[in-house]
């Protein structure tokens, strides 16, 4: 099913989006007076090799056209598909290929933005929404790594204890707010306020140093990841010093 509400909120000035095979969508739209490419996953589809390879194919075709058109990803996936067959075929390669294609598009000068309007979890989340330069959460977005019940099973902690802990420490809690705190989500939009199209065109206009992954800095500022940015920076400094040490020794 096409996310018509979302599409009309983002692209009131027209689009040619249509549903494709394997619960994908694709087409072009207008935003802020320019053409954008739009790709998506619908129906909370668990991400398997078929869906991933179709989307990656679209992305690579857009990159090949060499016109630097922005790409907007509308994401409603689930976790990666969990079957023996998919793993046997190398699901990790398919998901990584999709991630690489999206990141390559960014490197090649395409502004990449994901709009999460449904669920996304674990490897599917990494391969899609988290591979774009900017991620937006709208109504219905529910990103997660794993649901609390599964975390409870793995950590062997009672669910209610875990739920209680999650309130105090959002570092493992599912949902938009905890993930926004880590820097994953840039902005949270409401479809009903009628401002989404405007916000999108503003984002598209701002393409300064978009290939600098600064989500850890964002996470530090928001208090959801207090150590990551600092540790990474310390390592970067020490890396240069370690090379000096080598020469000295």
């Amino acid at each position, binding site marked *: 099913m096409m996310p018509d509400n979302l599409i009309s909120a983002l692209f009131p000035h027209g689009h040619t989006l249509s549903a494709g095979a394997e619960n994908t969508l694709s087409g072009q739209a207008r935003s802020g007076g320019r053409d954008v490419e739009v790709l998506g996953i619908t129906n909370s589809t668990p991400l398997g090799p078929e869906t991933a390879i179709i989307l990656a194919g679209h992305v690579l075709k857009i990159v090949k056209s060499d016109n630097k058109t922005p790409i907007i990803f509308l994401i409603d996936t689930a976790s990666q598909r969990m079957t023996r067959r998919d793993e046997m075929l190398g699901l990790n390669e398919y*998901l990584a290929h999709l991630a690489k294609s999206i990141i390559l598009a960014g490197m090649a000068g395409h502004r990449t933005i994901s709009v999460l309007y449904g669920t996304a979890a674990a490897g599917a989340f990494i391969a899609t929404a988290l591979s774009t330069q900017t991620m937006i959460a709208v109504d219905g977005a529910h990103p997660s790594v794993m649901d609390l019940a599964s975390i409870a099973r793995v950590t062997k902690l009672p669910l209610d204890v875990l739920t209680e802990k999650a309130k105090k420490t959002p570092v493992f809690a599912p949902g938009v707010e905890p993930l926004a705190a880590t820097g994953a989500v840039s902005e949270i939009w409401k479809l009903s306020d009628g401002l989404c199209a405007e916000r999108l065109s503003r984002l598209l206009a701002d393409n300064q140093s978009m290939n600098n992954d600064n989500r850890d800095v964002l996470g530090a500022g928001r208090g959801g990841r207090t150590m990551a940015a600092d540790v990474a920076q310390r390592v970067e400094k020490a890396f240069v010093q370690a090379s000096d040490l080598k020469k000295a020794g």
Partner: protein
Amino acid sequence: MIPENVMNQPSWYESSARARIEGLLDAGSFKEILGPQDHVMSPHLALFDLPPAFDDGMIIGRGLIDGRPVAIAAQEGQFMGGTFAEVSGAKLVGLLRAVARNAGTPQEVSTVFLLLDTGGVRLQEANAGEMAVSETIHAILDVRHAGVPVVALIGGRAGAFGGGGLVTACCSHIIISEQGRISVSGPEVIETNKGVEEFDSRDRALVWRVTGGRSRVLLGGADSYVKGDIGSFRKAAEVINNNAPPLSLETLEREQGRLEHRLKAYGNCHDTPEIWVIAGLSTPAGIADLTEDDFIDLLVKEGVRHDAR
């Protein structure tokens, strides 16, 4: 008389992350960054009453292989399953960013080696771990974009699961041993979610047929296959040079073609021997039972090469 093929060098599978680094690099050349004495540890494990590790299970630094400067990162699979977490992830991300930033400077390295041994994201700090995986992938691609190959070495107890499977497939080149496993969802996870009929995680021969080193290298999920001793990993690491594929549109288009073909050719198979039948291998049901030497001969004969990655 102990057979030579048993009484071998220290095994990669059994060794600690630190022992792997020692064995991989030129003797005494490892310079650790944020080592144990810096006490940079996970702030989150105390909430779960779990003991931290001085290095958070991620050992990073610089060193030499055959005199060439390299960057190296190793996950300790025995600590929290080698998981990606806030600190362990940030150490890796910082290292990769430093490599990308210093490419072309006197501080540059020729290659990055990732000794992955991971169950994926550390669930006790799931969001930070998920972000660490994503940031690692971005940083690996930046390193590759800067012209420095990133090589994954897979052969530890924990394998390369979850986000670790994605990270592996983002590298320029993958070296794997028989014991190595690469997958996204682990067999136990699939069994828990989909039932034992879908994936019997206790049938370990099946687990290895689906995720193990031999199947991965035959199917194209890994590039080099080595025996399980540290010395063999080092030998394979020595010969990696800058002809690893750059990250480019052409590379990804070739990968697109390779993965589309795989799906089309083998998409109806349910176990790897069915794939080997279609692929025309001579002992489709007996791949796992070949000796290491016979399997390596088979690879040479088949000329399996998957350089589009």
